[in-house]
């Protein structure tokens, strides 16, 4: 049973890793991303470390996460992220559950507002974590969404 869980975690980290590994660029960075963490690691911390490489993240009220309080259908959860922070470079959306998972990262040029809408699959009630990168530092905010019918399938 534990072998299946390890496989599932490895697959989930890899699925998240495929997205972010495009950004990391180097072979070594790719190897780091895909290497399996120790079984007792806090998965969200691990995902965050790999995403932002040891920079500090500041929680802020200047990120607005618009999510339904209750998601009837977990496979279609609409989210809109806006921020009053200046010089936003990227917006990353993660789900903080077991295992924690980077869903998408949007790199936005200065021609755009700090605004992104998307639709997510969320299997079970969990926190959505948003990390906004500006030209100076990283900021975060989180919002809980209750899921009625879980949605990783269709």
């Amino acid at each position: 049973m534990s072998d299946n869980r390890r496989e599932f975690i490895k697959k989930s980290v890899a699925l998240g890793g495929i997205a972010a590994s495009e950004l990391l660029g180097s072979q070594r960075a790719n190897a780091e991303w895909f290497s399996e963490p120790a079984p007792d690691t806090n998965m969200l911390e691990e995902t965050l470390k790999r995403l932002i490489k040891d920079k500090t993240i500041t929680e802020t009220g200047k990120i607005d996460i618009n999510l339904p309080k209750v998601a009837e259908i977990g496979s279609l959860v609409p989210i809109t992220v806006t921020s009053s922070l200046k010089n936003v470079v990227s917006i990353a959306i993660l789900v903080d559950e077991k295992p924690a998972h980077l869903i998408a990262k949007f790199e936005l040029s200065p021609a755009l507002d700090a605004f992104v809408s998307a639709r997510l699959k969320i299997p079970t009630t969990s926190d959505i974590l948003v990390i906004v990168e500006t030209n100076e530092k990283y900021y975060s905010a989180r919002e809980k969404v209750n899921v009625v019918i879980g949605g990783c399938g269709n």
Partner: protein
Amino acid sequence: MSLLAAAGINMSSIKIRTNRVAGKTQIRILIAHPMENGLNRNTKTNELIPAHFIQLLTVKYNEEVIVTCNMDARISKDPYFAFMLKGGNAGDKISINWTDNLGNKDAQDHIIGM
């Protein structure tokens, strides 16, 4: 121009809509794509449905890249995205490109209207 395009039929997987709102331009994108995560099973055969999901999406504004999005299969089937362009004028071009994990791609252009 293909016969279908000449007939006004667009076979692209990508729909793009723009609307001018208070000096800004909202860009909305809808893409037809299964976004399979590779963990679902065919309910009849019980076989695993292979992972098939968009990994990379780019948005260009008059040839300049304004959005690069890396995503995984946790984005819902038939991905929808919206962005807000500061400014934007009639005649400007929005271009969308996507690539999925199997190497499939598609692209679509849209001209901002009045």
